[in-house]
């Protein structure tokens, strides 16, 4: 079920009312309702893949219980390995099998050997990378004795399948989310109101910003070999806003929905395009994934300890794995590698922790230097996004090559061929500007509509205005990009 679907508009109030009015007395029953609702939410897409979530939940629940029972280190390690093998095995089969088969065949062919591996017609289960990482974090934390294994099977199943964040995160840590399923939830009016605001802001980012940009991005990337200069730059910039609106919009809807049910999910985006350097960008973009890799990959590898070579290896490892996590395609690996290259100079110069607080913390506007830094960082990320969006590395290189050619590539004619008026593009630019202004004003807060202190009539006018904008754009709405990961 998509958040931006009519089914979800009916599903959410029904589950909400059952949760608070029918099953509010018993936390266990509430958890069972969450599991049932989450399975319905997921099964709406394809019920067959529910078996994967159920199996994965059973395995990690059982292994957690076993880890709690034994002090034998070898046995504990074995249990951890079983969890890793099963979870990563699912990912390997469903997400990466064809990639490895094709890449190995290409490699053999390049040295003159012929190999014909059968590629499988595998359907990628929605959100597999998200819930797999979430269950793995539980088993790792239990193994590291940072978390007590749970004996409450319904709480655990609800933790793995919690519908707001099941298919596209934020990837929750068991330490944060699981204990919330143990305790009685009480309805908190302010929290619920804030949740609704965050949902509204998330829909605005997804349906108004991301889907409007997608109209241009899809055609510009499809015809990139024929285009040049300005229009390709425009395509890359619009994609930057599309992917931000799409993914951070999803995260806002997920976090807001969870708040309606009394849960606090971790923040996933913190205005990344206001970052002054790449290190800051990565502290603000997809925070739940970056911190997952930091906790479970980067630090175990040695982190920033050890010699320069070791540090370089660790940085490359985390960025390449992060790229590969996004999809079985060389484009994502190159995207990760490019970001590593952006990051390394900062690490070597030890400037990667220079900008920890949000820009212009004490002032209304950024300084000239900060504006310059923000623009440079944004353009660097746009360049990297080209690899993320292009169908192949070759296409991305052609795109970037053509981007630096002179001329507007027949911009006006091209816009006309899209059957869109010049006013449409100005409208999209206006909406992006609105997003930037609102998020700039709210940059010290969690989301674009948090804690607005205006008089009620004005606030309600804003809510209704935003809802109308969302309705205006609803017809072109599409699936969330991050579902494919």
């Amino acid at each position, binding site marked *: 079920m998509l958040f931006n679907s009519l089914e979800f*508009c009916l599903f959410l109030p029904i589950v909400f009312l059952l949760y608070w009015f029918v099953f509010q007395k018993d936390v266990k029953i509430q958890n069972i309702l969450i599991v049932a609702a989450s399975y319905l939410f997921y099964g709406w897409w394809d019920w067959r893949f529910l078996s994967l979530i159920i199996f994965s939940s059973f395995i990690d629940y059982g292994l957690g219980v076993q880890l709690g029972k034994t002090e034998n280190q070898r046995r504990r390690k074995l249990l951890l390995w079983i969890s890793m093998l099963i979870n990563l095995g699912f990912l390997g089969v469903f997400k990466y099998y064809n990639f490895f088969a094709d890449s190995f065949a290409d490699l053999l062919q390049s040295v003159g050997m012929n190999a014909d591996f059968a590629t499988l017609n595998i359907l990628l289960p929605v959100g597999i990378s998200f819930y797999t990482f979430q269950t793995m974090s539980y088993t790792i934390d239990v193994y590291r004795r940072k978390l007590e294994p749970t004996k409450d099977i319904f709480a655990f199943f609800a933790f793995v399948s919690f519908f707001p964040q099941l298919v596209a995160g934020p990837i929750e840590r068991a330490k944060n989310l699981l204990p919330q399923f143990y305790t009685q939830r009480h*309805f908190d009016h302010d929290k619920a*109101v804030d949740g609704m605001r965050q949902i509204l802001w998330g829909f605005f980012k997804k349906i108004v910003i991301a889907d409007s940009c997608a109209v241009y991005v899809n055609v510009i990337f499809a015809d990139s070999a024929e285009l040049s200069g300005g229009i390709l730059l425009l395509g890359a910039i619009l994609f930057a806003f599309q992917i931000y609106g799409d993914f951070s919009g999803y995260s806002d809807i997920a976090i807001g929905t969870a708040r309606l049910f009394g849960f606090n999910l971790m923040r996933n985006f913190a205005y990344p395009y206001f970052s002054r350097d790449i290190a800051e960008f990565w502290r603000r973009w997809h925070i739940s994934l970056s911190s997952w890799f930091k906790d479970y990959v980067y630090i175990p590898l040695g982190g920033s300890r050890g010699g320069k070579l070791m540090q370089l290896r660790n940085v490359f490892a985390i960025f390449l794995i992060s790229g590969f996590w996004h999809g079985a395609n060389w484009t994502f690996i190159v995207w990760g590698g490019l970001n590593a290259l952006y990051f390394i100079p900062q690490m070597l110069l030890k400037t990667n922790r220079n900008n920890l607080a949000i820009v212009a913390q004490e002032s209304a506007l950024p300084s000239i230097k900060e504006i310059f830094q923000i623009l440079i960082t944004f353009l660097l990320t746009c360049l990297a996004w080209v690899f993320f969006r292009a169908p192949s590395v070759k296409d991305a290189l052609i795109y970037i090559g053509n981007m630096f050619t002179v001329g507007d590539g027949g911009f006006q004619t091209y816009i006309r061929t899209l059957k869109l008026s010049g006013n449409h593009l100005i409208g999209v630019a206006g909406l992006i500007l609105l997003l930037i202004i609102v998020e700039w004003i709210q940059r010290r807060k969690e989301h674009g509509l948090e804690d607005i202190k205006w008089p009620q009539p004005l606030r*309600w006018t804003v809510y209704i205005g935003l809802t109308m904008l969302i*309705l205006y*754009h609803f*017809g072109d709405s599409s699936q969330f990009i991050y579902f494919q990961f």
Partner: protein
Amino acid sequence: MKKFIRKILFLLLLFFVIIQIPKWVLPPFWGNEIYDKKLNHLKESGQKYNTFFIGTSRVNNGIIPKTFDAEFNGNIKTFNLGAPGSSGLENIELAKYLMEHKTLNVKNIFIELPSLELHGDENRVSLRGRYYYDLNMYSFSLKKIFKSSKTFKEKYQLWSEHTRLIIENAFSISIFDDMLKYLFSSQSSGQQFANNKGYRALYINTKKENDLARRKAFLADKTILTKRRKSAERIFNQAKYPKDEFVIKTFEQLIDKAEEQNIRLYFVLYPKAAEAIYEKSRQVSSKKIKAHVINLASPKKYDDFYKKEYSFDRAHLNHKGAKLLTKACAREFKKIK
């Protein structure tokens, strides 16, 4: 909790009321450009016309008002209200609109025998396929679904499609932008739709790109006319068909409504339609309806319509064929008189 729900409900209500404002301002057939422009023309023409043909492109391209009028020595003034791709449900609404519109001088309505189903998926999500869908139509559709002999699964599927449509329309989901565009952009006069009294001719030597493509596809398929004729023959020769009592009742109510207003209403079956349309037409047979059906589709009686000479493409007649069809329709109408 109650405060929260009250706030949400109030906001929703406020929003719902605001979202209805464009609907109050919009004309009834705003989402179908052809109907909208043709009705505008009718308004401007006062009581100039008294006979109206409603239906799809088969009507739009098949009935020539001038030819029809010539058969009746000036007593009949015809206007062709046909619109390509219009749906049966929409056409029934248009017929009711004409009957209820007292400023028009309506004496005769010929409505293409409609299939009272929703459009296919592709059309249903388009503005043309859904703008007219309101609560009345929803309740009508649900009654039809639950009284039909479909399986539970089929009924559920149809119920969910109709429910989705009514919720989306109630909140103007996906059509809000079209509403605003209609209200705030300058509307063209649409005179081209009213030219030739609403008839649009299909000439075999056409230069129009869309028409040309259809014509080429038709000429490339040598067997299509034979297929269409055979399927029509098979259906019209079959002695018995199960009856769709709900549609029968609906049509009979429409006939009664017309009679109350001294309007003569006829359901017309046009040639070369798809098999499913004829099958549905056979399911709505009753003594009362039979007296109000003009069948121009039977190959046994009207073999010419299935000949290449009179065809433009697989489903439409050319201008020459339209002349023949219009005269045939007039003849059948005279017989009833």
